[in-house]
């Protein structure tokens, strides 16, 4: 019989003799335990991540637990904002567009959160996707927005953050690590405010 055949036969007949024999054969079990301890221990030792900082690897990716990819974009007011310059502050990055209804609906809640927490080192960045400054300005005026609106004219930031859905919101801690991602919307104000509070506490 071939090896595959023997393996299939063992599984098909449900003959779990190897495992059952461990119940009575104490020396076989002891040898197996020592082998697991030695080989498993060696494999665990080899799998170590030396010189770690206690928080895991420092990979950059738009995923919770990892460092947020940097972005440098112009604001509607003509200034430039870099995420790396905001290290030490809690940051909420909201990707949106004027034609997206949930984005429009949640924008006042984002504005209210920004107003409530801006003195506590929370920054909300509303990153608009590839729309004209005039169109974005008209929108912010209509809603009376004062939070920083960034213009992603070439779509690079959307690409870096792999945004596939509007709106998508990233909650970034003071250490630059993404704490949470909310896909879609509109987000309730309680959600935004509670996540912001968590970022500030963390």
């Amino acid at each position, binding site marked *: 019989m071939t090896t595959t055949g023997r393996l299939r036969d063992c599984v098909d007949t*449900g003959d779990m003799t190897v495992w059952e024999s461990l119940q009575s054969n104490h020396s076989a079990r002891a040898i*197996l335990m020592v082998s*697991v301890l030695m080989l*498993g221990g060696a*494999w*665990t030792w080899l799998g170590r*991540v030396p010189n770690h900082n206690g928080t*895991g690897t420092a990979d950059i*990716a738009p995923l919770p637990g990892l460092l947020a990819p940097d972005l440098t974009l112009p604001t509607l007011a003509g200034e430039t904002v870099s995420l790396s310059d905001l290290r030490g502050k809690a940051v909420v990055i909201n990707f949106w567009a004027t034609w997206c209804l949930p984005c429009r609906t949640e924008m006042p809640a984002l504005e209210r959160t920004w107003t409530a927490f801006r003195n506590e080192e929370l920054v909300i960045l509303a990153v608009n996707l590839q729309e004209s400054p005039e169109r974005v300005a008209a929108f912010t005026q209509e809603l009376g927005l004062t939070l920083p609106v960034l213009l992603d004219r070439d779509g690079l930031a959307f690409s870096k953050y792999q945004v596939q859905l509007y709106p998508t919101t990233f909650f970034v801690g003071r250490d630059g690590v993404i704490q949470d991602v909310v896909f879609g919307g509109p987000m309730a104000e*309680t959600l935004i405010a509670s996540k912001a509070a968590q970022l500030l506490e963390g």
Partner: protein
Amino acid sequence: MLPTLRIGPLALQTSGLIVLLGFWGALELSARQAGRLGIGASTISNAGWYGVLAGLAGARLGYVVQHWSIYRTGLLGALALNPQTLHPVAGFLGGALAAGLYLWRKRVPVRPLLAAAAPGLAAGFSALALANLASGAGYGRETSLPWAIDLWSAQRHPAQLYELAAGAISLLILWRAGRTALAPGQLFLLSVALLGGARLLLEPFRANSALIMGGFRAAQAAGLVAVLGALWLVPIWSGDPPPALARARATD
């Protein structure tokens, strides 16, 4: 990678959907196994779904309590259908308490219950690997091996696929073993040894493992302890197989 699934105006988080489907599948398998062991299949199903409902309620309640200063002025927000506003520990405690109380009232014995959970654990292991593949989480270390996948701007080990394969193989073995006259405690120990062994073997291929002192990977160390613990308990938890399965084996 498919983090979100858009169905009309609805945006679903694919990983969450996979976890939910995985839980349903795992519960079904465990319920069937429970039937083989002489525990009512519906008892396990009911316990599972009561656990989920109580878990979700507990998780939301825990989150609202944690952020009471925000929710007290907008209590309706507590009813929002949003998976981000859940407290994991409160959810786990709520779910475990509800399922535990139900099983205690039904007087379900512990070892057969654990044996019933065995195939479900392997199915859950596989579902989590698939969810990680969809979201891009639990990704592998960089490698130049020919089967590397392109993820997060690098060629990486398909760590999620390794785990999916390990979970599927464990499930096959456990499902078949569940048909034998293996004592219930042994079936559970076998599942712990298989899944712990998979974690011990595969964790080093992951790039973002949680680390403990000395740079050791927490899940890998836990896998090693789980395998050794299962082997240690083998003679202690040996016992009679379920009567129905023992009779079936005797007539073979």
